[in-house]
């Protein structure tokens, strides 16, 4: 119908004009090591971080393994050749040996940057009930409420600090869920990783505030390779949030992270992500390549892990937050909204590996494609021989805006136990011109109508986010799709 093409053209134009709110960069003296990747680079990173010998060994083993590997090509993505020698693997905007002890020691430029991003680092101004680890490029700038949390025995600090202060815990758990041999990007990360966050919640402790890490890429021609490790000991609970943004630049930037989560007996971890890396412009210039390995291990009996992600940014996303359910009666959830617009590409989903008895997993994936983007769900549900009574429910919905974008679903099921029940449902829908006109007739503009429909469609996932984040995410969805038109 004429209406459809006319409206969607107008709509697509509006989308293309959408502004990325976090595209500014900070002009700050940054200690950037020379471009290139070889053993000397690894040794340099390790020495800058004053790491123990065993960690350097770990890095070097990973690097040697990475050198034997090829970049994976199975994803439904068109990834330009990446020259790993043209990237700098370490950028430190704090240029100080240690993490500053007090807020006064932090460069005001850095504080301003995080203020501008809505992440105040002064505890008195901080978001109530939320502790933040702020990471810029390769270094953690500041972790708030560290002392308050320590009173309950909760460790929340940068990964580098954890290596110094809690080496036994790091040594015990790092690489135990995502080994460096796991995949190409995991090997790369294991070789060159810089800061991320470390969380340890001791036995029986319910973490009284939300913990969060805010990742910011600032420096040019660098990559960010953070590593996050969360350990929830028996009968503990923690809710963790992750947010990310980057400046608007013409060249692509690489972000290859690893997140490992270990959940012990009857413990529960909720991990939420609002990923808003710079997505590139309307023609597909620039943007972050987001190649991330996230995996949790429900080791303990009746342990619980919940992944919630709202993915709106990045030029290319390759990401499958997964869970190994080895504890009996353990359960995992994956709730995802992935929005692609313009020329963005996303191949994202999850893996649920059922090993223990009576393990349960739920997958709810909502893809939204607009512009000329490509959006794929890829998920694996594996039930091993011993996983009696395993249960999975998967629901994968795709929503298309316009007729030049693509939505794809690749569900894999691998079931080796007859008592398992595995269900999969999938739908694809399009916002129809009749729906939009119905809204128009009631006085609702087309952009607002799309906002209503998209937020309604994603509500099941948004409801899983902590309150403050849900509001942010809702706004983000509207901005990503509607354009910031008044």
């Amino acid at each position, binding site marked *: 119908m004429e209406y459809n093409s*006319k409206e969607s053209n107008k709509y697509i134009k509006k989308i293309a004009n959408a502004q990325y709110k976090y595209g500014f960069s900070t002009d700050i003296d940054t200690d950037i090591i020379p471009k290139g990747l070889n053993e000397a680079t690894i040794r340099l990173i390790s020495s800058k971080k004053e790491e123990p010998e065993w960690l350097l060994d770990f890095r070097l083993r990973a690097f040697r393994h990475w050198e034997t590997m090829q970049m994976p090509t199975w994803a439904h993505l068109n990834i330009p050749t990446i020259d790993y020698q043209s990237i700098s693997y370490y950028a430190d905007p704090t240029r100080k040996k240690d993490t500053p002890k007090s807020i006064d020691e932090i460069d005001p430029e850095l504080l301003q940057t995080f203020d501008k991003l809505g992440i105040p680092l002064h505890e008195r101004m901080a978001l109530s009930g939320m502790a933040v680890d702020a990471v810029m490029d390769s270094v953690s700038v500041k972790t708030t409420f560290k002392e308050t949390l320590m009173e309950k025995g909760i460790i929340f600090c940068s990964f580098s600090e954890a290596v110094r202060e809690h080496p036994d815990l790091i040594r015990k758990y790092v690489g135990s869920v995502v080994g460096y041999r796991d995949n190409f990007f995991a090997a790369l990360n294991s070789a060159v990783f810089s800061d991320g966050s470390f969380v340890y919640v001791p036995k029986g402790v319910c973490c009284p505030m939300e913990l969060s890490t805010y990742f910011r890429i600032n420096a040019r021609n660098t990559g960010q390779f953070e590593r996050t490790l969360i350990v929830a000991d028996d009968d503990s609970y923690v809710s963790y949030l992750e947010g990310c943004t980057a400046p608007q630049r013409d060249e692509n930037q690489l972000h290859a992270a690893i997140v490992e989560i270990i959940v012990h007996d009857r413990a529960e971890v909720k991990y939420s992500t609002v990923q808003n890396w710079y997505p590139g412009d309307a023609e597909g210039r620039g943007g972050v390549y987001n190649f991330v390995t996230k995996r949790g291990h429900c080791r303990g009996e009746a342990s619980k892990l919940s992944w919630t992600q709202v993915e709106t940014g990045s030029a290319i996303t390759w990401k499958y937050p997964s869970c190994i359910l080895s504890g009996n009666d353990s359960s995992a959830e994956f709730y995802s909204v992935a929005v692609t617009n313009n020329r963005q590409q996303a191949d994202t989903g999850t893996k649920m590996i059922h090993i223990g008895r009576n393990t349960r997993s739920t997958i709810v994936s909502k893809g939204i494609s607009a512009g000329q983007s490509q959006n794929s769900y890829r998920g694996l549900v594996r039930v091993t021989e011993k996983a009696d009574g395993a249960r999975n429910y998967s629901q994968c919905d795709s929503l298309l805006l316009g007729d030049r974008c693509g939505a794809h679903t690749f569900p894999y099921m691998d079931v080796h136990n007859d008592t398992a029940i595995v269900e999969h449902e999938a739908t694809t829908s399009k916002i129809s011109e009749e729906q939009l006109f119905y809204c*128009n007739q009631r*006085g609702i503009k087309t952009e607002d109508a799309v906002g209503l429909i998209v937020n*309604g469609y994603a509500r099941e996932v948004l409801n899983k986010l902590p309150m403050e984040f849900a509001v942010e995410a809702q706004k983000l969805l509207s901005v990503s799709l509607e354009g910031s038109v008044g």
Partner: protein
Amino acid sequence: MKTILEIKDLHASVNGKEILKGINLTMNEGEVHAVMGPNGSGKSTLSSVLVGNPAFEVTKGSVLFYGKDLLALSPEERSHEGLFLSFQYPVEIPGVSMVNFMRTAVNEQRKYRGLSALTAAEFLKLMREKRAVVELDNKLANRSVNEGFSGGEKKRNEIFQMAMLEPRLSILDETDSGLDIDALRIVADGVNKLKTPQTSCIVITHYQRLLDYIKPDVVHVLYKGRIVKTAGAELALELEQRGYDWIKEEVGG
């Protein structure tokens, strides 16, 4: 008498095919006009063109609504100006709750009129009041727009939205189709309760039975894209008894 709607020589087509071939119609404030006619005569096209459905192209003619050039306004502006269509086939919008939908609609209208948005409490109170007009169940009001509603519930929901938006001119496009006698009575009662001396109504229908409840002041017969006969309420009764053939013969169709 104040003229509120003045349609002059209106021509409109869809996909290049002319459906309306010169409609002339004038309405005064407070009047109820019935538009009747055989299938395919252009009744629904007329209502679509008035509310600005872009699937239809106006090729000639003019429409004045309260003195304003209606055809120059966007569909949402026409709504804000007080024009409402009760759709023949209300669409389902999964995931969007009636509450959210109506709240957006009401507040957009208030913004257009320079009024501040209603608070959540004020809005819910308004919903409760208006729901009663068409005996709409609270459960329906909490569901997604029209999703899983029966035919009768959808039509009641249209009149509920009409109650919420308080239009100056409502067009009921075959609101009686698919309704059993009880639902028809509830819907018609709702429309009558909302009627004031300042509000006007165009009732598009095939049958007399809706007009037993909603009494028209004027009845038009639309045939082949033109209004071929205009008379008082008695015309509808005559059509009910004699069908349309005599009209077709009169106009030589």
